[in-house]
């Protein structure tokens, strides 16, 4: 249901419901759910028709002269024309509701006309509008039934209502509105969202633009592409993390996460291959995911706004290898970080991102703890078969396939606490990674959970930061950005390192 494009809300229908009989708690909840959350209008709203019967044998033409028994009246029954009888007229509503599973498409009588006569209680006639049914209304009922189970359910319902906060409802309204009108620019900025609810953005995948041609005169410019140019603005929301659901919108062209509280952008942003413009400014990012760079080089990304952010300055960072202007370590960083001189038309190099430097590689062991590099060189861990292999560890293999399985979401946190602490840590880690949209090795593209290597690459993307307006001028100083790269094994590290490494095959 979630993936379906929501239809416009159906005309409001007053549902009459069997209030004169003690309602079971389950039917209470069913009514609630059916009428509102599913937006299904297949609730019975009309009485069963009254039929009379001529087909009793005694009334046939051939029996015209047969003696008429005293009781031979036309049989009347209340029920459907296909023969279903309503057994007890007192309980007909309930029976009818149980039988009527499929919408027959036949609506008899007016919904409004009979409602009051059948239902003397004014309280129950409000049930159609039960979005506003407060818990107080249900409470006296519950008390009269004296059912503690209902109380429990109500508390559950209460919790659900709290979860769907006003902000989320507001955001949902905006999204639905955009879907309905075919607006491909979804503005959820300053909507006070602390988190993006997981299923909020999914329907946008199916957004279709509506044709703009409504009436004459039809000129050239009214013809526009119906391919949605999906833009999503989540600016000014106080988001602390980006959920994986965002990265399933693979048609997204413009994404703004400006002015939030993000500390990290998940590498899964790479799935948004159609992205053309990203705004990540005014956040708490210290580094960017390397996948953004991939989107620049291999994808469509043309405008990347990342400043201001507390990004790591290259001057303070530890550098293992310089790549620009040459492979040697410069004496002074300020002097080195200059675009090389060129004359005439700008060479391709003046446009493309420049790889300035690479930071040292941090390695992690199979449990995801950083490995002490000094111990690595002398200790037993540096055996060649342990370092050079690309084979994932058994922990990694089972974590990965577990986080892909459907069981993963079904384990409640309470159950997880019973697991051994070591596993608990790994499982929580895996859940975090999965919520962020998963990870793929930046070297070998394999999906993984526990990163085994991490390093920073410094790239100058000045041309992309100003939206490809112009090439770098000769001698322009470079302001490289830190991009964090993750590797899935100790072999998935920068090439330089492998070449110089002693254990290289």
């Amino acid at each position: 249901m979630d993936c379906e494009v929501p239809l416009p809300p159906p005309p409001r229908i007053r549902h009459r419901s069997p209030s004169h009989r003690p309602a079971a708690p389950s039917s209470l909840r069913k009514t609630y759910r059916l009428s509102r959350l599913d937006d299904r209008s297949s609730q019975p709203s009309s009485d069963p028709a009254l039929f009379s019967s001529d087909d009793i044998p005694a009334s046939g033409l051939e029996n015209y002269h047969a003696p008429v028994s005293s009781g031979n009246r036309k049989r009347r029954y209340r029920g459907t024309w296909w023969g279903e009888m309503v057994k007890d007229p007192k309980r007909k509503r309930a029976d009818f509701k149980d039988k009527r599973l499929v919408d027959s498409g036949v609506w008899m009588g007016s919904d409004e006309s009979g409602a009051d006569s059948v239902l003397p209680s004014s309280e129950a006639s409000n049930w159609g509008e039960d979005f506003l049914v407060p818990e107080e209304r249900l409470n006296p009922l519950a008390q009269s039934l004296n059912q503690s189970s209902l109380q429990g359910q109500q508390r559950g319902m209460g919790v659900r209502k709290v979860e769907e906060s006003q902000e989320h409802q507001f955001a949902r309204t905006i999204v639905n509105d955009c879907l309905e009108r075919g607006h491909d620019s979804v503005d959820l900025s300053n909507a006070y969202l602390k988190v993006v609810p997981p299923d909020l953005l999914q329907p946008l995948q199916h957004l279709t633009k509506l044709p703009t041609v409504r009436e004459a005169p039809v000129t050239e410019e009214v013809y526009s592409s119906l391919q949605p140019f999906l833009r999503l603005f989540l600016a000014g929301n106080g988001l602390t993390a980006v959920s994986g659901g965002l990265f399933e919108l693979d048609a997204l062209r413009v994404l703004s996460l400006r002015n939030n509280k993000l500390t990290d952008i998940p590498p899964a942003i790479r799935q948004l291959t159609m992205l053309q413009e990203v705004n990540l400014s005014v956040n708490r990012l210290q580094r960017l995911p390397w996948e953004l760079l991939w989107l620049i080089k291999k994808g469509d990304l043309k405008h990347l706004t990342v400043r201001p952010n507390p990004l790591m300055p290259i001057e303070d960072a530890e550098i293992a290898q310089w790549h620009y202007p040459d492979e040697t370590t410069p004496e002074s960083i300020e002097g080195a970080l200059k675009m090389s001189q060129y004359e005439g038309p700008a060479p391709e190099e003046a446009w493309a991102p420049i790889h300035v430097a690479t930071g040292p590689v941090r390695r992690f062991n199979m449990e995801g703890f950083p490995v002490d590099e000094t111990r690595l060189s002398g200790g037993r861990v540096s055996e060649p078969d342990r370092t050079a292999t690309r084979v994932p560890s058994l922990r990694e293999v089972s974590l990965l396939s577990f986080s892909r399985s459907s069981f993963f979401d079904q384990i409640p946190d309470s159950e997880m606490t019973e697991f051994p602490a070591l596993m608990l840590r790994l499982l929580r880690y895996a859940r975090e990674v999965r919520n962020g949209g998963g990870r793929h090795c930046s070297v070998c593209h394999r999906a993984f959970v526990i990163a085994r290597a991490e390093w920073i690459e410094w790239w100058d993307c000045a041309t992309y930061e100003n939206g490809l307006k112009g090439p770098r001028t000769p001698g322009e100083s470079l302001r490289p950005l830190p991009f964090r790269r993750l590797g899935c094994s100790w072999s998935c590290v920068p090439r330089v390192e492998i070449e110089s490494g002693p254990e290289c095959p």
Partner: protein
Amino acid sequence: MAATNSSQSEYVTIVSGDGFEFVIPRSTACVSGTIRRMLEPSSKFSEALTGRCVLENISGVVLEKVCEYFCYNQRNKNQTNVPDMDIPPELCLELLMAADYLDT
């Protein structure tokens, strides 16, 4: 099996808690850090002497998958494109426990 040549023997036996025995090459078994340390000749553990490791807390079903992993690891050790290994989801948690125990 004599204790002297078992340390050089090519195959070792790994026994699950419920009595299933898996005979696998020594180098393959040494993918696991725990088993490698058990079998280290200098350790004088009984496992090292007999070439037989009993893993009481791992069931046969899980140990079979573990051995499959050992072979998978051994086979792909020097490959650049490592294929994925299939793990039935119901075994994942137990395998994770086993992986933790076996240090692999």
